[in-house]
């Protein structure tokens, strides 16, 4: 439950973000870490913990180009705790690990990073020579052989079923994309800065029905760093500490993108409120995973902003999720407009909003509590961030 001893986010930082950033993955990562250190008012010598997801993954170097050891070596960090691992409830796994490390006293200041080079890997594949596995496994052997290569295909299956069961429409789902592009237009760091209309959305080319081009985020080069620190360090920081009120994760029995089991966001959303003294009514702002717009709809339902099945109607007209609405979401443009920072961009934006430091994308009201959800299908973690 909420406590003054909860770990805090002391700093957030980000590298240049783009469809192609001509910079080595390790240096991109260090750009983000330096920015986060400056934001916190800390020096490299203050850092004693390092964490990342998924770590360096030899079979997917575009997704996992940099591990903890590379960063520790490059910066000469004297680490008393570090962890980088793929098998985790979602991209926020290393943040949960850092919270545990700080609470246990294993470290005082943990730098947590997420680096993606999916843009560069498309342009310069020779720099990302991933090892090809002998065959598909882990459940994917029953999905990908059917030319279902992308999470767009897997998510489209869930979306088509939601449309069928609850009468959800493309016009409703489209509000997630339109909202993202409207917010992205305000964000000088966004990849797409031109807003789109409903007409644009409905006439866009289909990727995997019912998901069109605007329902999908874009492959990016980006590194985002978050510094998780012990509560007692908060007084010495450059900026207002943001308290990590709760982190929830769950996997309801099966890890699968295609078997008949509810998406992991649903039990995770319920779990989040069991772990906090806050309720859904207390939330001021949301940063919800929009690798695909349909995942955002699921997070809105899962976190209890509306009943399951009502996500489409909640989005209708787009006014609730707009920056002047009851629940402004993805205020920097989310991943749909600002690029696939792979969830960590939401944490950076939430912290900046809560501190009133979001500049062009700042929501003009007193913000105390932000919720963020990361992942889709069997991956789900949710987090409440509070300014006390």
């Amino acid at each position, binding site marked *: 439950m909420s406590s003054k001893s909860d770990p805090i986010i002391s700093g957030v930082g980000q590298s240049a973000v783009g469809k192609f950033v001509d910079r080595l993955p390790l240096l991109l990562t260090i750009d983000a870490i330096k920015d986060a250190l400056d934001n916190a008012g800390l020096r490299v010598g203050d850092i004693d913990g390092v964490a990342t997801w998924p770590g360096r993954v030899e079979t997917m170097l575009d997704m996992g180009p940099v591990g903890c050891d590379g960063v520790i070596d490059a910066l000469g960090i004297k680490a008393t705790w570090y962890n980088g691992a793929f098998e985790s409830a979602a991209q926020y796994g290393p943040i949960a690990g850092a919270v545990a490390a700080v609470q246990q006293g294993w470290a005082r200041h943990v730098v947590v990073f997420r680096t993606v080079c999916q843009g560069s890997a498309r342009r310069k594949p020779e720099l990302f020579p991933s090892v090809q596995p002998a065959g*598909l496994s882990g459940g994917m*052997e029953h999905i990908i052989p*059917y030319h279902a290569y*992308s999470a767009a295909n897997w998510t489209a299956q869930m979306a*088509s079923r939601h449309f069928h069961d609850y009468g959800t429409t493309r016009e409703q789902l489209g509000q997630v994309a339109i909202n993202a592009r409207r917010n992205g237009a305000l964000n000088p760091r966004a990849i797409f800065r031109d807003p789109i209309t409903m007409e644009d959305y409905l006439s866009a080319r289909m990727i995997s029905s019912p998901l069109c081009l605007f329902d999908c985020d874009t492959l990016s080069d980006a590194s985002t760093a978050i510094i998780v620190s012990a509560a007692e360090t908060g007084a010495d920081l450059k900026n207002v500490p943001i308290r990590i009120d709760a982190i929830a994760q769950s996997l309801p029995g099966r890890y699968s993108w295609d078997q008949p089991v509810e998406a992991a966001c649903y039990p995770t959303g319920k779990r989040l409120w069991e772990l906090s003294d806050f309720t859904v009514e207390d939330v001021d702002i949301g940063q919800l995973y929009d690798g695909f717009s349909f995942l955002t709809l699921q997070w809105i339902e899962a976190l209890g902003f509306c009943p399951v099945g009502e996500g489409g109607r909640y989005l209708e007209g787009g006014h609730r999720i707009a920056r002047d609405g009851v629940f402004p979401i993805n205020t920097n443009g989310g991943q749909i407009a600002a690029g696939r920072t792979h969830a960590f961009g939401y944490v950076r934006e939430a912290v900046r909003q809560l501190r009133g430091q979001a500049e062009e994308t700042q929501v003009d009201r007193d913000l105390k509590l932000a919720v963020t959800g990361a992942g889709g299908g069997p991956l789900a973690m949710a987090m409440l961030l509070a300014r006390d």
Partner: protein
Amino acid sequence: MTPRPRPLVDPVNQFFWQAGKAGQLQILRCQACGTWLHPPRPICAKCLSEEVAPETVSGTGTVYSVTVNHQPWVPGLKVPYVIARVSLDGVDDVLLTTNIVGERALESRIGDAVHVTFEEQDGLWFPLFTHSR
């Protein structure tokens, strides 16, 4: 046609990829409590029995969810094509991701009755589905 990405075949799942050679669709089942186990695994999650064995199923089913893919994800991929999840008649709590093929594939709707047809590639038989009526 673009080759299908290849599954890692192991002693537990080999039957699934070979059964189509005889025109059969087989799903692993716990012989102790009757739970269907897919993807195949060597222990029943319900009763922890290791007595698991493939059983031949009817090969008929219903479209549970469907998407028409338009994006050429890999070079040479011919689009559009249909990816679906099929619920198998008589097999509880299992869905098969598959392709719907045949003349009516692009009109596939949730609830459509379909039956299995196999496509062989390099000694593996992939279960695809086509409209029944």
